[in-house]
């Protein structure tokens, strides 16, 4: 027992100050991409051609449109672009309420806004999550598990993962929704008491990710359940997930936020 006490003093208090303190992410962290608002040269589609998930398209005015929901945060487009029109910031904030809000095109990003007042009052101080893996490679699961550790400490916000869908308020879905998991996912959603939410975590759950178009998967959680919050990433950093959920609950800044 003395050893445990001694080790406790050595290990110390580790919960990060975020969101009241800085996020302390390293230089090479691939956070939200920054897309140039200048039109690109006619005939050049190097970025779109190199993107593994076809997340990049061009608007009529030749401005780049990057779909964050399909983005798997690799570096292909950065390397391919001769003009440096796309680059990564270390900003971890990316979650959005709708698929359209995930499309970056040089304007400011539209981050997730909070739920309506009634739901915010209900879940503001106590939100229970039920996780369903529907074909995820396990990367997103690992980051969700990390949210429970002493550094990110999800429980300090009154948010916890629970064992049964009946105890849960929000369904956290990962994976592109494989054929075999479709029924189970729907059953879990139906087993939850109302009011309920659905959070899609990771590129696969948002759009299918690297498995988009595979005949054994259904290109994301949208195919099976109505989604309230999309958190892009491959896998999303725990702070990205935390930021998204706190924004949804209105515990960061209220209302629509533009950054």
């Amino acid at each position, binding site marked *: 027992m003395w050893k445990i006490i001694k080790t*406790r003093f050595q*290990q110390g*208090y580790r*919960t990060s100050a975020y969101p009241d303190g800085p996020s302390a992410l390293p230089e090479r962290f691939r956070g939200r991409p920054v897309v140039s608002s200048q039109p690109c040269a006619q005939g050049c589609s190097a970025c779109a051609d190199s993107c593994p998930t076809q997340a990049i398209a061009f608007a009529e005015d030749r401005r780049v449109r990057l779909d964050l929901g399909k983005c798997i945060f690799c570096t292909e487009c950065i390397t391919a672009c001769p003009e440096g029109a796309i680059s990564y910031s270390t900003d971890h904030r990316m979650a959005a309420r709708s698929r359209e809000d995930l499309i970056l095109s040089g304007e400011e990003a539209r981050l997730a806004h909070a739920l309506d007042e009634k739901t915010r009052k*209900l879940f503001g*101080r106590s939100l229970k999550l039920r996780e369903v893996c529907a074909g995820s490679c396990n990367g997103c699961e690992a980051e969700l598990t990390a949210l429970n550790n*002493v550094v990110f*400490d999800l429980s300090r916000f009154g948010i916890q993962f629970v064992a049964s869908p*009946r105890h849960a308020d929000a369904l956290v879905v990962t994976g592109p929704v494989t054929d075999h998991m479709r029924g189970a996912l729907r059953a879990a959603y139906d087993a939850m008491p109302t009011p309920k939410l659905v959070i899609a975590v990771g590129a696969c759950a948002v759009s299918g990710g690297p498995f988009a178009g595979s005949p054994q998967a259904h290109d994301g959680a949208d195919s099976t359940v109505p989604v309230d919050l999309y958190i892009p990433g491959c896998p999303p950093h725990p702070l990205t997930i935390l930021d998204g959920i706190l924004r949804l609950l209105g515990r960061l800044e209220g209302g629509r936020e533009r950054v």
Partner: protein
Amino acid sequence: MIAHAAALLVVPIILVGVVNRTKSCWAGRKGVPLLQAFYDIVRLARKRPVYSSVATVFVKAAPSVVLGTAVVSGLLVPLLGRRTPLSFPFDFVFFAYTWGLGRIFLMLGALDTGSSFEGMGASREATYSALVEPAFFLAAGTLAAASGKSSFAQLLRFRPDDPATAVVWCGCLVALFVLLQVESARIPVDDPSTHLELTMIHEVMVLDHSGPDLAVIQYASAIKMTVCAGLLAALLNPLDAAAGPALFAAANLGLILGAGIVIGTVESLIARLKLRSIPEYIFLAISAAFVALLASTLRRGGLG
């Protein structure tokens, strides 16, 4: 009387908070807010429950019976002071059977859902509570015999004044502490935060309850833990009648919350037992209570 009822309603929330904060402190994390149990119950009460298609009346009746029996048992135990709202000779027997009524409805509710896990949980619950009941009766009975009183409010005022009575007192404390761990599903008997349904005892029986039903059951478990802690506090309280009711009550509440810190610390220091070893652990409680009984009998017989 009103103060007692108020304590019975408020202290469970704070006690759960104290246990969780103690655990967070040991882990080095900021942890759950102190009043989180309250926020959880308020949220659950505002949700619309979902019932399984094979559920019948038991699933719906269980939460109310469980809460009712928990509250009634709380009225029998001196949480605040020297008098309890309900008190009559041998009320500790009534106490044990009130709990038994609550437990049987919880188990019926679990079996009613048709889930094999909940069935397993019900069978484990039946086994361990059957094993710990003798410990409770031996402890309460010994205190009754040793103090010459038969009602909770009075027999818990028993204090040692010579080595033999010290043995009685300690044995009963040990037995009651293990009772708390078994009935409130704490480590080493059960892990309240476990996510592994195959290892759960209490938690698995409520996996199918949702919304207000779940709120009621969570609240009832908190009340049960408070009641058990109240038993320990009443046995430990060093003050006597001369100290005045307010101070006495404060000391009692302090001891209850102190019990919460001890529970949280024990949970942070040892691992949970293999399910097969739990009967051995419970036997520890039975032995302690039996030793207390022996000491009390020998003392009355003039020896020791």
